[in-house]
């Protein structure tokens, strides 16, 4: 992220010094160390298990995984599995967080309903959402609905709780200021409370984005015949560890992509917060 910030702030001044070559990737010490560690782990992964006679179906090597990847791409319609999982991750994330935010704001505006509902919210928050997956399959069958529902459910709570928490801690003096300026209840909501809670909402969305992948995966593991979660259970059934490894890799990549997009949005939206110097 620092690279991006660097080049975006650097871009406008670049024409002023055309003679200087533009700095390429600032490879610093920590980055170098991280990359070296990755190379080391990959090397160990490639050579240690065969040296110890660990069978391929327990720990496949890096090259085994790459070979399997090629096969999956050609024979298992990998692209469509990735597309399906990515689609339902994003869809579940959007629906779940929109509902979480909406209900969080509504409860935040009504102390009465918040008190009435808070024990149930707490209970549902603690209940393991993924355990609902078999129920949803019983109710809706072997299609995309159950995995979407698990994702929505799992995404819903962190967003709701973050928004509700932020609504409780909005600066009373700011609200009084708005009242003194004769702002209506909705004016106070849109001009004070909403923007005040934005940092917490964004934090909730970031947590939710990582959970969304879990929701979809569990939904696909339990039922269905499409998606990376399905490939995991399918590969597991065939003792094809390389397939499982590859599916996990792509699930992680989907999660990272969603998270990265959110971080970008957050940087844009919360530009007014002073950045910590480091």
């Amino acid at each position: 992220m620092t690279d991006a910030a660097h080049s975006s702030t650097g871009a406008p001044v670049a024409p002023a010094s055309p003679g200087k070559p533009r700095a390429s990737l600032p490879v610093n010490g920590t980055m170098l160390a991280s990359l070296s560690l990755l190379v080391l782990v990959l090397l160990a992964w490639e050579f240690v298990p065969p040296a110890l006679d660990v069978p391929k179906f327990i720990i496949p090597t890096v090259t085994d995984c790459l070979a399997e990847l090629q096969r999956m791409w050609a024979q298992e319609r990998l692209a469509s599995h990735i597309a399906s999982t990515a689609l339902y991750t994003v869809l579940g994330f959007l629906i779940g967080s929109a509902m979480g935010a909406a209900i969080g704001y509504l409860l935040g505006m009504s102390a009465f309903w918040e008190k009435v509902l808070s024990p149930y919210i707490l209970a549902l928050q603690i209940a393991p959402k993924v355990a609902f997956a078999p129920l949803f399959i019983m109710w809706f069958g072997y299609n995309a609905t159950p995995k979407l529902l698990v994702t929505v459910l799992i995404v819903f709570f962190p967003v709701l709780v973050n928004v509700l928490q932020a609504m409780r801690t909005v600066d009373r003096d700011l609200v009084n200021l708005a009242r003194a300026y004769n702002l209506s209840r909705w004016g106070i909501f849109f001009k004070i409370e909403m923007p005040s809670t934005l940092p917490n909402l964004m934090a909730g969305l970031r947590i939710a984005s990582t959970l969304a992948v879990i929701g979809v995966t569990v939904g696909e593991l339990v039922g269905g015949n499409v998606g990376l979660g399905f490939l995991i259970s399918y590969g597991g059934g065939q003792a094809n560890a390389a397939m499982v490894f590859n599916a996990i890799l792509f699930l992680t990549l989907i999660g990272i992509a969603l998270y990265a997009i959110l971080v970008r949005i957050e940087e844009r939206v919360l530009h007014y917060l002073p950045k910590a110097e480091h």
Partner: protein
Amino acid sequence: MALEFNAVTKRFETNGGVLTAVSDVSFKVDEGEFVAVVGPSGCGKSTLLSMTAGLYQPSQGEVRVSNVPVTGPNSHVGFMLQKDLLLPWRSIVGNIEFGLEARGVGKSERRARAMQELKHCHLDGFERHFPYQLSGGMRQRAALARTLAVDPEIILLDEPFSALDAQTKLLLQNSFAGTIAETGKTTLLITHDLAEAVLMSDRILVLSERPGRIVAEINVDLPHRDQPLKRRVMPEVSTYAAQVFKHLKLEEKAEEVMA
């Protein structure tokens, strides 16, 4: 009469029973007058201010602003606290426009008035900045600009300088006094700083410990109300400050005797 308190008492219901914040407070403030209210902490100074702003109603008595009883938040009053209360997500000019938005002022006129107040408060060139980019003193000036932008009849200042360092405080007092004198606004300043009260006001009301009541009223008969820095070097200032101090001290002693 710009502001009038008639036998105002304010009680709050708390967990431990009923708390009387202010008791039987009566005073009047003339148009264009600058009145300071001093008193020990917790004497209900801020309660007076909140009742003037219409944020809550007196339990007994009546508050009148421009001869109209205050029944709720109203456009006659602009108030400012120790915290600048600038909205961090808005630019400085956006913050100054904030009060105008609720009053249905059109967009271009809002901007024009905000820019004018920006100049008034010596913040030209900072309209595009965000609050975190400004120093504490500048933020308070922006808060004053926001307060002035709605063109209130009365400005209520609740310890606006108390969070600032000593030098910034002096400069800001001077800047505020100049701006307020220029606009000719009626002002009520709540403070616990006796020197500040003497330097900035025409008249000082001294409040007692809780329940707050007015124990003294001192007319500050000094020139240069618009320039506290000039007033500051006058020998009479310390005499006035001593006088205020004496009144506060008396109350403390009375409390000790009763205890």
